[in-house]
């Protein structure tokens, strides 16, 4: 048996990347009845995670970038960010990616089309396990803007599923 207590993360002082956080914002666009997802993640974490999961090197932003990097990234997030409305899982589509001006992070864009549930979205459930498999102290912050409400959620290893109820 592995004793999970004795574990020490030493990467604290400014390593190439000093702490592990992702930011996701989920906007419900009532005009197009779609959910727009913007995700900001550290390129280093993304590459490391995908290398662990798929044994493929992405080399994002270099001349040798993996040609199917979009697919690889898309597949990963299909498995690590689940969005459900009224307990029904939704499929999201790849929109694109964009390296942040700081060169450290990358923005990933996804979109879920046709998800108004006949105007009756009663619950929104999120399961966020992004990079939890490589980083024990990973924190994933999700900002949800749904119609006029805003929700600010934090996902960690201890809490990777959260459900929102909407009352009319």
């Amino acid at each position, binding site marked *: 048996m592995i004793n999970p207590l*004795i*574990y*020490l993360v*030493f990467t604290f002082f400014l390593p190439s990347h000093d702490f592990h956080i992702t930011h996701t914002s989920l906007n419900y666009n009532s005009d197009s009845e779609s959910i727009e997802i913007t995700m900001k993640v550290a390129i280093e974490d993304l590459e490391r995670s995908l290398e662990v999961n798929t044994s493929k090197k992405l080399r994002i932003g270099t001349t*040798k*970038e993996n040609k199917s990097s979009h697919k690889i990234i898309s597949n990963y997030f299909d498995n690590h960010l689940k969005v459900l409305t009224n307990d029904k899982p939704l499929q999201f589509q790849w*929109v694109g990616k964009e390296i942040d001006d700081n060169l450290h992070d990358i923005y990933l864009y996804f979109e879920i089309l046709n998800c108004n549930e006949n105007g009756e979205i009663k619950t929104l459930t999120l399961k966020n*396990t992004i990079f939890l498999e490589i980083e*024990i102290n990973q924190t994933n912050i999700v900002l949800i803007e749904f119609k006029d409400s805003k929700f600010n959620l934090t996902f960690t290893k201890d809490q990777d599923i959260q459900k929102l109820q909407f009352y009319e």
Partner: protein
Amino acid sequence: MLRKFNLITIFLCLITFVNAQENLNNSKFKQLYEELPTPNVYRTASGAPGHEYYQQKADYEINVELDEENNIINGNETIIYTNNSPDILNYLWIQLDQNVRAKGSHGQLTTTNNMNNKMSFGSIKRMHDRMNFDGGFKLEKVTDLYGKELLYKINETMMRIDLQKPLKRGQSFSFKIKYSYNLNDRMKIGGRSGYEYFKEEENSIYTIAQFFPRMAVYNEVEGWQNKQFLGRGEFTLPFGDYKVSITVPADHIVAATGELKNPSSVLSKKQIERLEKAKNNYTDPVIIVTQEEAEENEKTKSESKKTWIFEAENVRDFGWASSRKFIWDGMAVDISGKNVMAYSYYPKEGNPLWEQYSTRVVAHSLKIYSKYTIDYIYPQATSVHAKSIGMEYPMICFNFGRPEKDGSYSKRTKYGMIGVIIHEVGHNFFPMIINSDERQWTWMDEGLNTFLQYLTEQEFERNYPSRRGPPSNIIEYMKGDKSGIVPIMTNSESILQFGNNAYGKPATALNILRETIMGRELFDYSFKTYSKRWAFKHPTPADFFRTMEDASAVDLDWFWRGWFYTNDHVDISIDKVNWFKINTGNPDVENPISKEKVENENTYIGNTRNKSSINKTVTEYNDNAIDFYTTYDPFQTNILDREDYSKYLKNINKEDEEILKSNKNYYEIQFSNIGGLVMPIILEFKYTDGTNETIRIPAEIWKRNSKQIKKIFILNKQLSRVKLDPFLETADVNMDNNYWPTKSEPTRFQLFKQKKDNRDNPMQRDIKAKERIENN
């Protein structure tokens, strides 16, 4: 919508306030008397050291040997500790930092973690490696100078030595420690120091630090700063002089804190010549150990040993690096007429990046930091290549940045490397010279240093892609879930979101002070004053807060309170804009305006339709149906109206008359503070004639009501648009409520989708473009 009002009313409502009745003073402008310690003879209310300020001194003579075969450090040190405090010391506390890597240490036990069923094999392996590694100090002997054993007690990472005779003010006590410890493989176990093993050629790069038992700080703030080392809160160390002899395999090249005292016994004649050449070259680095020499060196392993002797004065620590893989270059830097050396040590794996940038960046950092703080007075500064970390020691730091095996590298690798070198070299100033307590306050060195890193990056290259500094970069953090955000004034071990909290937010806060609140001139003078006052001393947060005010005459208590003592964010909104003009009373002016207003009002649809559908009314086709009231125009001015107006004018004084005739526009704008942090209000007025104007109102506008305020602006022209925080300088997290008329900013998602082509890889595109040209 335009409203008219009479002259008397405007001056009554300049600022209205809805003051909630509270029993306590919760004002955001309340002075920090309760938060800051009472000034005393050691630390003054101005933020300067007091007349009784003292600090302890710890001098070291260390002989250390690297056992390369077994990856063990063997050491033998003499510590000369001088008590400059007025207190009598009965015992001394010594830091045994490596004990954090001892089996079952508190550092390990107090790290919270858990398992999940989807852990990668790699992270489980890492966990095993860490648990099984025995990296604590093994003390062989703790004796006085004559070899007599001393009584001591080890409590985790701290060791107490009991003194037989109390140590009084001005007295010194010398003692010796013989010790060893196992070096950690950084790539397996992690760590600020250790070694990186290169499998192909069976060689390592050793980056060695915390390698000797070190004196803890004793002062009037903490007593003994013997807070245990748990891994995150870094170090607190007294100043002293060091003489360190480092014995390594004879074919190693050694980099270290201080100056090399025996070059002739460790370097070749050629290398010494090149070193002398480097000392006179101020423009480009001179290669002292070439790549060919390093590659040749790697092929064999010397059986014999050499001892490198380094000396350093007035430093708070000592670090070194050793490898037969090292290429070495250096150049001279002119710091106010004094020659300082910038050095870099790196393996072939660091090239071509390192030979082009490392030493140049070291030199640049020394110049810029010296400009904003104090002249760098150590003889040299060194950057050593160390994969995936950035870590600082006096005069030497370990930095990441490794190209691909074929020598190509991404933009991110390049700027990441330049950024980390600036940062770690910058640590020479904070905390190595301006020696704050890192164990207690991470932000005091990381935050101040990250701020200067930003300024240095921007002077390295225009629009350098800095990660931290500009207010817009901190917004994502500031608007996040408050349960994940703690104030900057939080002990290092309890900080959540370490990088944002201790690096990003304080660096941004200082940038806002400099650009928006104090202005560059007052800020730079105050920041330099702080640096001068506390160079080679131990400052606390209060000393910094107080000095910044003391040297600038800007009351900053509200800023420290909001940005450093709370986790509030900035979100100010424009609630509404009301437009007024003065009723001049002049019937020739007012009547046409009133008429136009009535005519422009929306009319009932029936009336509009009647205009065309009723051909003629009775009064229109029959003149006999007309009387006075039929033709009376209420907006027509007659002689009596004009006489009334003349009388009115005679009764008012000259100043009032001028106001009457000025034809100004009065705009009453209401603002709400949603985020909690009070900030200056910066407005961009756009007028109907197309011109612009910027208005800057200090944060004190919130002094009586920090939630909602109104302000009247008297303008010659009419407004067509108002924008709050137009230059993105306050870190306002929500720009949607910053416009009048209301306007929503498109989200990042929408902006991205609008772009026709998503070029996320300019380098690839550039190559494709070149191929196209070649093919044509």
